């Protein structure tokens, strides 16, 4: 007895809605990442381009195929896999064999995301899960850094890029470089303002995307202004790195100076694009600050006192792990809360 005339619709209030959808947010993150990726390609040439393309394709394809095979609604179109793919590529050393990047893409999406139910439910940042996995699985290729701005980078890929699947890549002495942080850690080179400037402008070695602090900051600002990113997290994280490394620098000035700490390594990329992944960071206003400060502190701790030169990835992953607890302990005090009661609730 269905009526021919179109029926009225019943929906729940509110009947007005802000017109920004989740896929649009993800798409805008992709836009914001394009300049970062472009700079990376400019610095490392063909290898970086291939790396980004491979990893993005791998992430997207994995998401699509797994969803298809498990016969649930396909979510490959929500752009989040693209974000993961690009960010993942930007954390990898240029010159990494492409097959490893492709494997990493699968790990990101499956281990980092789909096992937990997909977008929104993953407790850890998928791109970083992928990177941490690769770091532990293929440590040698993952810690081999290519020199930036090598001549001929646009016509020729770094040879190791094209290693056969599952096979070791050849050494690439001719192309090799070292990150400023590793230089400091393993060669005890001092760091001065010149290094700070080059790290800020991006004329240094490192992961594909950890090169120009300036470009990353500008792109981050775009997202923050459009309210698609929580500015408090990078602010907290960078601020905390600055303060803690400043303290250590004052105690012993063999430690790198705080500005160098800010601009070097993956900190900028991590603080602006990865710690801010809303899925894996706290939601409460206080929690967001705690998260920023905590990840910043861990970064400094690992960089200065750990075995590894760089700690951003581990710091963010540890922050992710603590996020549920931070959230639980920082539930906002509600309007009209009775004071004593609020305390009891918060400890739950």
């Amino acid at each position, binding site marked *: 007895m269905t009526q021919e005339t179109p029926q009225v619709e*019943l929906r729940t209030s509110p009947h007005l809605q802000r017109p920004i959808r989740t896929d649009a947010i993800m798409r805008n993150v992709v836009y914001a990442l394009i300049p970062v990726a472009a700079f990376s390609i400019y610095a490392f040439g063909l290898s970086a381009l291939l790396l980004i393309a491979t990893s993005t394709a791998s992430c997207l394809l994995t998401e699509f195929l797994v969803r298809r095979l498990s016969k649930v609604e396909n979510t490959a179109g929500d752009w989040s896999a693209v974000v993961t793919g690009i960010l993942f590529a930007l954390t990898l050393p240029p010159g990494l064999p492409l097959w490893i990047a492709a494997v990493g893409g699968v790990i990101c999406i499956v281990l980092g995301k789909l096992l937990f139910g997909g977008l929104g439910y993953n407790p850890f940042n998928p791109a970083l899960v992928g990177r941490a996995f690769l770091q532990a699985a293929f440590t040698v290729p993952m810690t081999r850094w290519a020199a930036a701005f090598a001549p001929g980078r646009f016509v020729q890929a770094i040879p190791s890029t094209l290693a056969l699947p599952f096979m070791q890549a050849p050494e690439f002495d001719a192309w090799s470089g070292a990150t400023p942080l590793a230089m400091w850690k393993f060669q005890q080179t001092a760091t001065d303002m010149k290094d700070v400037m080059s790290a800020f402008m991006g004329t240094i070695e490192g992961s594909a995307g950890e090169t120009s602090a300036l470009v990353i900051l500008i792109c981050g600002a775009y997202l923050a202004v459009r309210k698609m990113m929580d500015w408090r997290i990078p602010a907290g994280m960078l601020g905390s790195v600055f303060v803690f490394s400043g303290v250590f620098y004052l105690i012993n000035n063999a430690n790198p100076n705080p500005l160098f700490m800010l601009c070097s390594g993956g900190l900028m990329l991590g603080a602006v694009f990865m710690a801010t992944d809303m899925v894996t960071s706290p939601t409460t206003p206080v929690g967001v600050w705690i998260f920023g400060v905590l990840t910043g502190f861990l970064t400094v701790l690992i960089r200065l006192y750990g075995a590894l030169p760089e700690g951003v990835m581990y710091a963010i992953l540890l922050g992710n792990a603590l996020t549920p607890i931070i959230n639980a302990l920082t539930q906002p005090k509600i309007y009209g809360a009775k004071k004593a009661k609020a305390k009891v609730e918060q400890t*739950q």
Partner: protein
Amino acid sequence: MGTATLKKTFSHGIHPPEHKAATVESAITPLPFPPGLVIPLSQHTGAPARPIVEPKQEVARGDKIAEAGGFVSVPMHAPAKSTVAKIGLALTPSGAMTPAIFLKVDLESEQEPPPEADSAASNALTPEELVAAVQETGMVGLGGAAFPTHVKMLVPKGKRVDTVVVNGCECEPYLTTDHRVMLEASEDLFTGVRIALRATQAGCAIIGIETNKPDAIKALAKAAESDSRIRVAPVKTKYPQGAEKMLIKALLKREVPSGGLPIDVNAAVFNVATLAQLGRLLPRKQGLIERVVTVTGPGVERPGNYLVPLGTPVQFLLDHAGMKDTARQVILGGPMMGVAIASLEIPVTKGVSGILVLTDKELAQRPTKVYPCIRCGQCIQACPMFLNPSRLGLLSRKEQYAVMEERYHLNDCFECGCCAYVCPSNIPLVQYMRIAKAVNRERKTAK
């Protein structure tokens, strides 16, 4: 007293587009009588009214046709000269069938004019008598909740009201009834405010008006100069500024305790339309038989503010205002808190402040695809009650309703819709809250 200069407000909240231009200039115009009226016996919060008429009985305009079913209840009056057709079940916006009096309107004969005001008599009443008189008018809150006004005016023993807050915010987009009332019935409004002051024995009254109604602020501020107890306070234009808890916070810097009432912070809140109606009805010993309704939205051809006899079916009202073919959704109330109705047979009741008609176009702009919560925290930063809608939504999805209540203050949510408004993932958060509340309520009564 003049207006304060600082814009007062509360924390969090949202800024939806206002959409008020279509009706803000349209003066209140009376609607003709429909052939049939439906008077549900329960159009207010509290016990239903008890009918005191029989089928086939003839009633005059303004006659009492149902008496209050208790203290938290109000009587009903006939909005027109008519015959009682039957006492049966009628559909309510909630979808349930409730008892109602069906009236067949006598369209032929002249409707009696309202009686003359007798201010002197009403001014002589004691607070207790005043409360009883208010109840007799059948007044309920016209701001939306339809809570019997006399109950709020009766100050319980041991409590005290120092300030009467008059709610002229009208923060809901699209709606302009309160705005028009403030402009067109300021005399009645001030009479009403004085009644409220007398009944509650409060020392002063503050009329809170959002800054997007400068003409109303100006007009009322001028009128308020004559009475030192009454002043006008502009408040920031922000949704849900009109929610009483938010308004109290903005004007008095007090927070109504969780689970408490305005009276717990020595305040009483009344909507401007409520007090304007009261100021008009009480001196005349008249009952509430009509109200101002904003009929608006892209699906309406002649949007405007209509004075509508209570019980008029929405269909009749929309026929009068002209409903477009593309209309697809009819909402009683504003877009943020209003309820979509399934049938146009539903009558306009005391709590309906607006009818919003949306078309295919608006619905198409709101796709139904729901993404998972990405924990962006937008909702947390929007919720004026400082709840955690993200968590509440996730819990509700997994049917952990008890946890929502025990740990996440479910019952403090007043369903303003800010969270769902900002949610990029299109999660029906308000609906999730309602489901949880409904289930919890059911479980409690089952116990």
